């Protein structure tokens, strides 16, 4: 028994692959048998993944979801940022450059609106909830962009660690919300072509959410959404602790 455990632990990536395959098989079955393929199997699988993450967090008290539960540590390898980015890049193989060029300027505009918009709404919410100093408002506003922009901004301007933790939480909630919400609103907002996917990627930004949300909606759109989303976090890290912070400071003193 001990040897079996050792093998499973040492080759964690392989056990994770088998587990994910089982989750996907179950999801495909649910999709075709219970929802008549109305909800894509990928969407169900991603949602099941989030439930596993929650269960893992409750069982272990850790912050890496299911990966903190002994045998499943390999999930961090399979689902880590290197393989995530590597496979996202690989999806570009089926994309057309000519389609991307069409969204050009609108893509850039959607990035600007996405970062500034999320930041402003987040900062206003922070204010309404009693976080009325500029540093906290900036950090929570940045957290409303992505869970990377939040802590990067908070650390840069010297916000409280409690506020930084909140900004991470807001960013992760956003990512989960986008993952689950995208397939539902896709038809409503016309998210069914490469150009709209690029605009969506720029407005929403959170790479994991965009990538998972599009995978659940229509995998053909993934490269288009991902290509604008990939600039979002960088732009957020650039604008939030500098220009947007200064604007808030100026507004607060006026």
């Amino acid at each position, binding site marked *: 028994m001990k040897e079996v455990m050792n093998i499973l632990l040492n080759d964690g990536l392989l056990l*994770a*692959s088998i587990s*994910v395959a089982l*989750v996907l098989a179950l999801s495909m079955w649910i999709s075709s048998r219970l929802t008549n393929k109305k909800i894509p199997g*990928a969407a169900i*699988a*991603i949602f*099941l*993944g*989030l439930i*596993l*993450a929650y269960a893992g*967090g409750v069982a272990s008290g850790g*912050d890496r*979801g299911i990966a903190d539960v002994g045998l499943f540590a390999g*999930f*961090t390898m*399979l*689902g880590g940022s290197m*393989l995530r*980015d*590597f*496979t996202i*890049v*690989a999806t*570009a*193989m*089926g994309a*057309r450059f*000519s*389609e991307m060029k069409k969204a050009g*300027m609108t893509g850039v505009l959607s990035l600007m*609106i996405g970062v500034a*918009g999320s930041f402003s*709404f*987040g900062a206003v*919410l*922070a204010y309404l*909830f009693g976080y009325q100093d500029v540093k906290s408002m900036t950090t*929570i506003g940045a957290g409303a962009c992505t869970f*990377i922009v939040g802590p*990067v901004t908070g650390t840069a301007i010297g916000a409280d660690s409690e506020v930084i933790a*909140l900004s991470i*939480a*807001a960013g*992760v909630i*956003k*990512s*989960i*919300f986008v993952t689950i919400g995208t397939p539902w609103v896709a038809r409503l907002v*016309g998210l069914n072509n490469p150009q709209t996917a690029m605009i*969506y990627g720029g407005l*929403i930004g959170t790479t994991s959410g965009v990538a*998972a949300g599009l*995978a659940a909606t229509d995998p053909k759109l993934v*490269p288009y959404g991902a*290509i604008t989303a*990939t600039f979002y976090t*960088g732009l957020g890290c*650039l604008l939030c602790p500098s220009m947007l912070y200064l604007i808030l400071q100026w507004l607060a003193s006026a």
Partner: protein
Amino acid sequence: MTIYGVAMLAACFLIGKLIGEGLGDLIGIDANIGGVGFAMILLIMGSQWLHQRRWLDTLTESGITFWSNMYIPVIVAMSATQNVKGALSGGMIALLAGTIPTALCFLMIPWLSRLQKRTTSEHVDKTEG
């Protein structure tokens, strides 16, 4: 050979990341700006270039399409390693700051999409896509 495709993908990935990292340094922030995006553009242009010269055989291509097909399983694994419990315990403000701005951004998609169509409607090639 399959490994040629994997190598090409890996090269595009690394060069893209380097460009993103360099761009971050240039502006003076510790973040990768669009590394994945640059890598994707490199891969699209590189594969088109090879394709036109008929240097891209099916085996080489399979080294890339394999990883492209692994995308959804990787995303499922990624979802399963998110700190969902932590996020849900962040309280009301984290919940609202994570959802309301995002919902408003969703609502802006149709507007920007119309704007995009208007600016490019003159030269839309219907045979493409």
